[in-house]
């Protein structure tokens, strides 16, 4: 020990947490900063960024980051129940087409078509996936991988929903502020909502299903009903992202069912860290801007992007968020003895 044992290292969060995770004891403004800064600063930044970036190209990137953040959250909730989805594009496409069709054919205004797209898309996905909810592991994943591709082909060959042309000239947002803040508020609400949900008794059962669904059955709880509810929630969040994007583009076509909307959220969650939801958002806010920043590289863009992704996964397999969280809890200060 340095300096003859006059000082010793002490972990900050030992003193602050009084036996439980929800009760804190603060002794100084430093404790308060330790507790609040990592929570308040990212949130504050998120709400200020649209003002800072207003009118620039990066405002769009911020919007995309939120959209992919929502899709990643949706993926992470499914994964928390043990359902590994390879088809977030299904959720995204269902919401996008539902909102787009209601606006295009029935002339529903934007403040009706987005909620209707969210709930309708969620209901559509839930009905489809409940049929295969008994499948486990990779078998379920394969079905989710096929479904969006199936619908893309159906739309193309049967020429439903205007086929390859897509639905054009949908209502725009009354103002750019509305679009971006809708996405940000949605993201924050879903992030904290999901985190809270998994700590409730309901969430305990969802987490239990991932551990061992036979235990849940033996305890008299209907596993399939809980899985269906989780799929509906994840579907609603994915569809909400799709509906937001549709009106942002003022267009919806087969591209919303493309693999991009499956792969990128998955990569974001794996990079950010699974199971915490915060990791999903963090991953999206790294990967989406990164892919935009690399546009200058031209042809090398995808190769470089892949390289960065692989090195991040190899260096931090637990995910960036879990790494930061661990370091945060290990944060020490010198205490005089």
């Amino acid at each position, binding site marked *: 020990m340095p300096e003859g044992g006059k000082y010793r290292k002490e972990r900050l969060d030992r003193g602050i947490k009084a036996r439980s995770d929800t009760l804190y004891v603060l002794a100084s403004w430093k404790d308060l900063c330790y507790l609040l800064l990592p929570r308040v600063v990212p949130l504050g930044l998120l709400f200020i960024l649209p003002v800072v970036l207003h009118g620039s190209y990066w405002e769009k990137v911020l919007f995309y980051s939120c959209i992919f953040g929502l899709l990643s959250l949706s993926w992470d909730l499914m994964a928390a129940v043990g359902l590994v989805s390879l088809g977030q594009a299904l959720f995204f496409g269902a919401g996008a087409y539902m909102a787009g069709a209601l606006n295009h054919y029935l002339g529903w205004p934007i403040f009706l078509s987005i909620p209707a797209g969210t709930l309708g898309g969620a209901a559509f996905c839930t009905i489809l996936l409940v049929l295969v909810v008994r499948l486990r592991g990779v078998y379920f994943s394969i079905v989710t991988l096929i479904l969006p591709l199936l619908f893309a082909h159906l739309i193309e060959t049967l020429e439903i929903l205007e086929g390859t042309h897509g639905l054009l000239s949908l209502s725009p947002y009354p103002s750019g502020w509305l679009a971006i803040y809708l996405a940000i508020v949605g993201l924050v609400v879903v992030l904290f909502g999901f985190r809270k949900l998994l700590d409730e*008794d*309901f969430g*305990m*059962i969802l*987490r*239990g299903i*991932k*551990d*061992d669904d*036979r*235990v*849940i*059955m*033996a*305890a*008299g*709880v*209907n*596993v399939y009903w809980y899985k269906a509810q989780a799929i509906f929630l994840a579907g609603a969040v994915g569809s909400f992202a799709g509906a937001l994007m549709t009106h942002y583009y003022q267009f919806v076509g087969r591209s919303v069912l493309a693999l991009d909307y499956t792969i990128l959220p998955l990569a974001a969650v794996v990079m950010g860290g699974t199971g915490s939801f915060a990791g999903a958002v963090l991953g999206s806010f790294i990967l989406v801007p990164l892919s935009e920043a690399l546009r200058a590289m031209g042809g090398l863009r995808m190769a470089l992007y892949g390289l960065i992704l692989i090195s991040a996964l190899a260096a931090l397999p637990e995910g960036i968020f879990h790494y930061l969280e661990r370091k945060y809890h290990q944060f020490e200060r010198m205490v005089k003895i």
Partner: protein
Amino acid sequence: MSQEVLLKVQKLTKVFGGIMAVCDLELEVRRGEFLGIIGPNGSGKTTLINLITGFVKPTSGKVLYRGQDITGKQPYRIACLGIARTFQMARTLQRLPAFKNIIVPLCSPRVTKFRGGKYGERDDVAIDILDDLGFERDSFVPYKMAGSLPHGYLKRLDLARCIALRPDLLILDELFSGMAMSEVAATLPMLEKFHREGLTIIMVEHRLRELFRVADRVMVMNFGQKIADGSPQEVMEQEQVQRAYLGTEVED
């Protein structure tokens, strides 16, 4: 013990490929009875439990519970009717704290119907149940991740999950296997207490000394069939049982 038949198994058969795991089995359990089931490895004891609790669908035959046909029903429906079972290889929710394991049965429709589904005190109920089974409430044990607990605790956690369901029929699949002597000695009086309070128990067990102390009746299985049925003393005196268990003597 009343005369009411709680569980009735009729001509139950399960074939896995070419193997008859359970073959034309007949069984009656009366309310309040403590039935032991013994038999050599592979004699179909666990399959019988899986058939009764719906985890495996029978090839033929019927399972009646309180006169109601429950053959091939979903496991969670059977659990909600009041049949709780433990697993041979203690199954628990490894990534949840031990007491959160007990939240799951407390959320089942069977229990919320009893208690009006009030939220907030479930944690207390869970800790109470665990405390009774030797998870001291003031220690850190109930709050530890189930995955980090020793085997004996996992077995009792499995049992606690069943007790939380307020079952009428409790089926224990080798509860004592892998438990320390002291843990067995602590758990056995609990089972006796539940039995005195009117719980019907079926216990599959290899530890015969402990089983014979508590069981009213013992059924012996071999090759999926019942080879003996009666009080512990009666059963062990039968030559067929001794042969199945100890093998035949080698003549010099």
